[in-house]
């Protein structure tokens, strides 16, 4: 199991566990963490699992692939920053054990 901490817009921290190989989106949804909508089912086709990767983790998570679908979609989300990712595209591998993700107030 891999640990992820979600920090909601009001500062509430929730740490959950998820099986290796599943996504950060699933970590939130399967553990009823509010703040991720994930409308498309986790196939990188909307932008309603937008998260801000904690700065300390950005090197390990990395940016979305330039010119790829994730970048194409993220540009239309609200309040994006250089650490914005779609949680469905973050695969929970052992190197990300303890990952911290910040949730936007609402998903668009």
């Amino acid at each position, binding site marked *: 199991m891999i640990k992820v901490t979600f920090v909601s817009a009001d500062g509430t921290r929730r740490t959950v566990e998820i099986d290796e190989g599943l996504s950060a989106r699933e970590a939130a949804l399967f553990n009823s963490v509010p703040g991720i*909508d994930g*409308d*498309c*089912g986790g*196939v*990188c*086709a*909307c932008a*309603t699992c937008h998260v801000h990767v904690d700065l300390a983790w950005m090197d390990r998570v990395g940016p979305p692939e330039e010119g790829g*679908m994730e970048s*194409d*979609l993220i*540009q*239309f989300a*609200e*309040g994006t920053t250089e650490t914005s990712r779609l949680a469905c595209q973050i695969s929970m591998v052992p190197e990300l054990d303890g990952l911290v993700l910040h949730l*936007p*107030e*609402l*998903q*668009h």
Partner: protein
Amino acid sequence: MATSAVHNQTVDSIPLGEINVANPYLFQNDTVGEYFSRLRREDPVHYCAESRFGPYWSVTKFNDIMAVDTNHKVFSSEAKLGGISVQDMHSDESALELEMFIAMDQPKHDQQRKAVSPVVAPSNLLLLEPVIRERAGAILDALPIGEEIDWVKLVSVELTTMTLATIFDFPWEERAKLTRWSDVTTASPETGIVESFEQRREELIQCAMYFKGLWDQRIDQPGGNDLISMMAHSPATRDMPFLEFLGNLLLLIVGGNDTTRNSISGGVLALNQNPGEYQKLRNNPALVSSMIPEIIRWQTPLTHMRRTALEDVKIGGKQIRTGDKVVMWYLSGNRDDTVIDRAEEFIIDRQNPRHHLSFGFGIHRCMGNRLAELQLRIIWEEILKRYSFVEVVGEPERLLSNLVRGITRLPVKLHAH
């Protein structure tokens, strides 16, 4: 039941090659579902070689639609290639060659969408919510109890028009113009909304001139968070050519009007057709939040979006050729029971209610999706406060259109608590 069985037999006996699901009369009489059901079963990516819209592919299953919708580099939305509906854009000489970002490819699409998207982004919606709620309450409070009224005219049209007027900061007393322009934009002469393409053109030019006036007033006033101010001040949109300006305005008017209007009407109809679900809602009004996406799935206010293939590509095992017209039938994908459990049933407490195709997916996914949900949530919360039953008391009338799945009249009687 007997007539339905006979009808089904008829649909099943049509040779597959002769099925033309773009026939607008199938939507007006609400029988198109039987055709889609057969295509999903027997020929999910179906070629119609001859129709008044020319030859086209129909993609009818959820996952195949998703594959087309998320492959914008191969499946183009460009207006000059025909655009986004089975009826080609720019195909009629007397029609206006409107340009709107929904019918553009990257990179221009992305720049223009980003410029207008903030008006319907969640933080702006938080500001709009109290205004929409107050206006929704006022609409309902003006309705008579126990008399037959037309829900479409008095509620669905009113609420969506008021919301649009709010977003545009449109002169309040003249807001009915917005409804008219929305209807005219998607109208062809056979619908009776306009007499001719010339009349449509004239009315849309009046619309453009009206908005040009508002634009000229606001371009010198910084800071407005209404849509016209945003467009007038954004570098991506402020120097737009005239037909692009008009096209994008009309896109937002139609996008925000025709669609939510029909989901408001469709929800009332669906709850009347499923009294058990209506009772669940009365027992637990908190179900509004999962009911709203279910209403949007159920209604599917835009039946389809169309793309044009930029290269040879296979979908669902069928060979699509460069230049082919590919129609994603959202209405059919939303009834695909291999992806959506009990897809033919209206169920207000589904586990993943937002997993539907009504907003599309990919870079062209509906920009106003959260605004649509907000309006529906507010109107239903306000309805439940006031009435025990919005009773449908006559047959609904439906729009003659293969694109907008519209309810044009819905007679109801209101029952107070």
